[in-house]
């Protein structure tokens, strides 16, 4: 079938650069574009929205407590303290998205560093590092996350750090796998043959080739970090009021589930939208960056 599916045998002056091919594939990926739009809307809404929106997220207004959505001054209704739900969703979005991003960056850096060292050096050092990764993966991640969250002073930074601490392993695994294979690839051997230092081989030769799966894993990690933050906050171990996050909005809404269900519905939808958006993008990236499609 190789001839049937891969008829292209590029000759001079014809093949477009693979980078642009990947970009084109990504842009053509319908779900990915839906994801990008969702995330753009959420990010812009969260960070610009508050400047345009007439209500403050912290202003308590007892007259309008439990205002039903679309039935009063507050668009999406108001919470038990009469605070505007929409405004709170926007501020919460800033927190949740920021935590998601920051946790992703942290976990990706840690995971990449550990995975790269383990994959490149293998043997004793790599083995030891990967055993540590394996051990971390033995914990169902929510168990570990909750354990840490339950004991550590909750706050934006600590929650970010905790989430990162419990979700770098998959990146590490991906990177280790990549490095293990790429290290054996001819171009890496060629780099060694010309006398490159290990650092050069790791950073200049192998890492650029491992970027695609790292980017995919990182995107999916944002989605996961947002989910984890919401869950930890939902259980009361995460971001603490009055700072709203989508998760802790759900936490306080839980009690009013029967009497004011909108308090639970909107933050939940926001989380779902954000996570779905990042998952869509991750999926699109995975497809677009699939090296099998270059050739």
């Amino acid at each position, binding site marked *: 079938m190789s001839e049937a599916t891969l008829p292209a045998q*590029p000759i001079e002056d014809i093949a477009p650069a693979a980078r642009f091919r990947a970009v084109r594939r990504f842009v053509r990926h319908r779900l990915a574009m839906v994801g990008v739009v969702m995330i753009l809307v959420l990010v812009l809404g969260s960070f610009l929205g508050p400047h345009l929106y007439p209500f403050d997220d912290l202003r308590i207004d007892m007259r309008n407590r439990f205002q039903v959505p679309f039935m009063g001054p507050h668009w999406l209704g108001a919470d038990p303290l009469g605070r505007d739900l929409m405004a709170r969703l926007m501020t919460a979005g800033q927190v949740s998205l920021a935590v998601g991003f920051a946790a992703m960056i942290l976990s990706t850096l840690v995971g990449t560093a550990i995975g790269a060292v383990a994959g490149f050096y293998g043997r004793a050092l790599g083995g030891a590092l990967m055993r540590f990764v394996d051990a971390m993966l033995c914990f169902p991640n929510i168990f570990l996350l909750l354990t840490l969250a339950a004991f550590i002073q909750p706050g934006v930074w600590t929650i970010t750090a905790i989430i990162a601490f419990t979700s770098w392993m998959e990146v590490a695994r991906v990177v280790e796998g990549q490095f293990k294979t790429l290290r054996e690839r001819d*171009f890496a051997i060629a780099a060694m043959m010309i006398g490159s230092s290990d650092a050069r081989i790791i950073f200049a030769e192998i890492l650029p080739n491992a970027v695609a799966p790292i980017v995919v894993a990182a995107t999916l990690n944002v989605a996961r970090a947002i989910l984890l933050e919401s869950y930890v906050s939902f259980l009361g171990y995460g971001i603490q009021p009055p700072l709203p996050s989508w998760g802790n909005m759900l936490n306080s809404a839980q009690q009013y589930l029967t009497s004011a269900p909108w308090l639970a519905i909107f933050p939940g939808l926001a989380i779902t939208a954000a996570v779905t958006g990042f998952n869509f993008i991750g999926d699109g990236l995975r497809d677009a960056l699939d090296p099998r499609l270059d050739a």
Partner: protein
Amino acid sequence: MDQPLLEIDHLSKHYAVGRSWLGRGGGLVRAVDDISFVIQKGEILGLVGESGSGKSTVGRMLLRLGDQPTAGRVDFAGQDIAPMSQRQLRPLRARMQLIFQDPYSSLNPKMTVGQILEAPLRIHGRGGDRAARQRKVAEVLDLVGLRPGHAARYPHEFSGGQRQRIGIARAIILEPDFLVADEAVSALDVSVQAQVVSLLLEIRRRMGVTILFIAHDLAVVGYISDRVAVMYLGRIVELAPVASLYARPRHPYSEALFSAAPVPDPRANRQRILLEGDVPSPLNPPSGCAFRTRCAYAIPGCAAARPPLAELAPGHFAACIRPELELRRG
């Protein structure tokens, strides 16, 4: 010419397989088992054998890719490189290079051809400043038949044959003494294969580089090499100048190899020696002569001891206890 560049002395490489992480069980694959030979300065030594014969392992050991050999010496220009660490080897890297089989995976897809070719110069501090280095790159590109303008392109923009040229350019840019071409033309289409073979010969002519040419295709090896070594199950069974070997092989395995090779001539003589069965597992090679289980001329004595490589004609070595055999080619 008759001055050795490399002397290989009782070189072996054994791998443990299927062993548990506690180091128990499993077996030992003798990928390369006690071989000795010499490569002369400026010569092209062909190395042929079927898959699993250990020819690639030999090539990589001579370049000291990967771990130290299990046993033996590799004297490269007077230095034993067998026990060296990769760090110790680094300065020597400029003098020995490898040309890979797969033109697709041997070039870093994320680097331009220029970057790929410049890297060795930068690492070894050769070629002067940036402009000088780029001139050198252009020069080498020209030598391998590409245009200097190609330096700005990425590998995937080239065809297989062109990529192989880039690989060769990288290998020769530091003007090494020794090249290993590991199945360098096997993955190429026939029409392109000839281009690359010619290029290698041209480079040898111009630079006087020594080449170990590893391949499974007897015809190509015969065409390019001065001398050829035939490997079977990790051992060299025959080593001779091309003319001598191709005129009269002295080892039954070489004979079988020749006879099996298809000749692109429908009128050619088609009396062939069909070997029976498959190559035995290197985990558990036969005693004595490793080839005896498939050999048409085997006698009980073959099982007794491993036959040494003996000089049966001037410069023509074979490891067979029956030098009297009249073997035919093809």
